[in-house]
């Protein structure tokens, strides 16, 4: 007994935790295997019978997981691009070109104390960032990334999108209300006023497009824009794009409409009392929102995952790896080696100062680049969803760049200017856009 108690005392705290966890893990693993072995077939049958639900859960999980690297990437882009525009170098220490700095920021926020002030409503206080974050993630669910790569395609996608992204106001209000701080409450109300005001022109600017497309199904809207880039809706709805762009900027609380959390002016607005990861979620949601509005802008007005030009000649890649038999194994086993030697030889022969191992490293890198390029080109040509996802990401990050660029340039507006602009300019303009579109449709249909 004494031996056991002394041994227990010698363990550090992580040691004690691990000591208790390891048997639990073993039991859990064994139990899981046993359940799969004993009940595998009924479980599979149940899952197969409820395939839509399984698909939905999987899609939500993937989208939720996808937002994290996206947010990290956009935070890094923001730091780096604004630094370059300020003639600074920006992050350059962690990772290649400092690209892991945002991850370090995330870890830092995660490790900070998650403080709950006295007097707050703990339940609402805790759920507010969750609501804000989930509103972003759920809105991302209906954005088609490529042909067939969409979380959930259904015919009211656009309506769903605006409904869910409007839900973030609730989160902001919850945060402001539950903080037990009159300034937080004011900040929450103010951001709610802003988001609600810009929700109206944002939605109205898209109604013209819905009239044109005749559907609210985002996938169909994208398919309508296939072909040359002149088929994109941006050329039929220029005013709508402009209004959508401005309103979406305000909706995502980006400069020049970032009054919600004007870092340099008010004390973080609704997020005054937040710290640690609960605070981090608000910011994650902001950057996910940037991605979402860029993605939606691309999807609705800039052709979505369609290439700006149709592929000029029909390509038939009838490459069936299965038909190669033993040749496939040889290709996988020997191809990289042969390619490495092939790329290494000229360097080794060219200069006596390059040693054999250096030439081999160069050859290995070049061979990898070659293989990746080859496979990428094959995937681009052969698999249309790869081409689609590449085009979609290219366009989306172009707009993300634009938003960051605006943040690096434009000064913040005042709250009265913000409201004036929404109600006196954007709302009439979006109504005008709607009227013109409807009239044009009637005229075109009458002529036909």
């Amino acid at each position, binding site marked *: 007994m004494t031996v056991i108690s002394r041994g227990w005392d010698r363990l550090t705290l992580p040691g004690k935790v691990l000591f208790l966890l390891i048997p639990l893990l073993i039991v859990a693993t064994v139990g899981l295997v046993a359940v799969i072995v004993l009940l595998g077939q009924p479980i599979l049958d149940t899952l197969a019978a409820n395939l839509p639900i399984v698909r939905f859960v999987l899609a939500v999980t993937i989208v939720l997981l996808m937002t994290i690297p996206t947010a990290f990437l956009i935070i890094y882009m923001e730091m780096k*691009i604004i630094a370059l525009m300020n003639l600074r170098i920006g992050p350059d220490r962690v990772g290649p070109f400092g690209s892991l700095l945002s991850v370090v920021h995330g870890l830092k926020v995660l490790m900070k104390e998650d403080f709950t002030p006295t007097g707050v409503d703990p339940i609402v206080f805790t759920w507010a960032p969750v609501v804000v974050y989930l509103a972003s993630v759920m809105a991302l669910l209906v954005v088609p990334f490529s042909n067939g790569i969409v979380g959930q395609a259904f015919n009211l996608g656009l309506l769903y999108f605006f409904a869910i992204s409007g839900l973030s106001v609730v989160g902001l209000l919850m945060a402001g209300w539950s903080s037990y701080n009159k300034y937080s409450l004011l900040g929450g109300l103010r951001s709610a006023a802003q988001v609600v005001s810009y929700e109206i022109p944002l939605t109205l600017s898209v109604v013209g497009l819905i009239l044109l497309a005749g559907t609210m199904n985002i996938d169909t809207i994208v398919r309508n824009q296939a072909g040359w880039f002149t088929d994109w809706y941006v050329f039929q709805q220029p005013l709508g794009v402009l209004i959508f762009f401005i309103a979406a900027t305000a909706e995502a609380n980006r400069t020049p409409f970032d009054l919600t959390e004007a870092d340099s002016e008010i004390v973080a607005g609704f997020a005054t009392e937040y710290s640690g990861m609960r605070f981090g979620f608000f910011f994650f949601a902001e950057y996910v929102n940037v991605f979402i509005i860029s993605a939606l802008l691309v999807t609705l007005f800039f052709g979505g995952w369609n290439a700006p030009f149709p592929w000029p000649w029909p390509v038939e890649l009838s490459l069936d790896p299965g038909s190669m038999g033993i040749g496939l194994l040889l290709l996988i086993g020997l191809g990289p080696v042969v390619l490495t030697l092939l790329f290494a030889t000229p360097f080794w022969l060219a200069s006596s100062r390059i040693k054999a191992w250096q030439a081999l490293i160069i050859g290995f890198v070049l061979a990898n680049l070659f293989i990746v390029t080859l496979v990428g080109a094959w995937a681009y040509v052969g698999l249309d969803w790869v081409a689609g996802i590449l085009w979609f990401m290219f366009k989306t990050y172009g707009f993300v760049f634009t938003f960051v*660029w605006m943040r690096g340039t434009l000064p913040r507006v005042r709250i009265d200017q913000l409201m004036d602009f929404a109600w006196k300019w954007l709302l009439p303009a979006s109504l005008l856009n709607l009227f013109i579109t409807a009239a044009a449709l009637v005229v075109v249909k009458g002529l036909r």
Partner: protein
Amino acid sequence: MSLIPGLGLAKGMALTLRRFFEPKVTIMYPEERIDVPPKFRGRLQLLYDEWGTLKCETCFQCAQACPIECIDMGGIDTRGRYHVHWGAAETYGERREESALRRSGRPVPDPAFRPFQPVDLGELDRILEDHDHDPADMLQILEETQAAYGYLPVAALKRISHETGAWYAMIYGTASYYAHLRFEPAASTEQAQEVADHRPLEATYLAALDAALGGSDRPGTPARA
């Protein structure tokens, strides 16, 4: 409001986009260090050797090298040792205070008993003319100036510096190097003169004394002009 709405926004965006591609001005400090600016001279500091003795020998080279003549030095500490002050004259102005002067054993100027005496520079100009304003004859100029004024007034030194083109610090260094050159009037005669000037009845007393004693060859009696 510009002629085209949104032109200002576009201009600003174009500016930041141009900056985006321009070379960056950041200096990656620990790896990369730029040279100090050519006029930077660092902070004034006197170094001590390993025995704790001041290394400064008051050669005045630093004062001569100083481009704005802000370095000056001099002073005596409480034990009569030559104590070196350094830096701009303003930074050690405390030695001009009465207590500092008393500690250093210098004559304490008393504004009440030392009215301002303007120095007649005509004599000095003549001396400078004799030496053709040549700074190479500095020692002779200084000696003749002291012979003319009894000491080296600051106003005279300034005049010499201005006329010969020699740095004031150099003249000051030369003058303070030689023991027979002094910056203040000889104390014994000067103070008695002043005391006499401010005691108008003394002459009467002395005259009465002389009359009573029948002679005027008392020691220490200042020569009257």
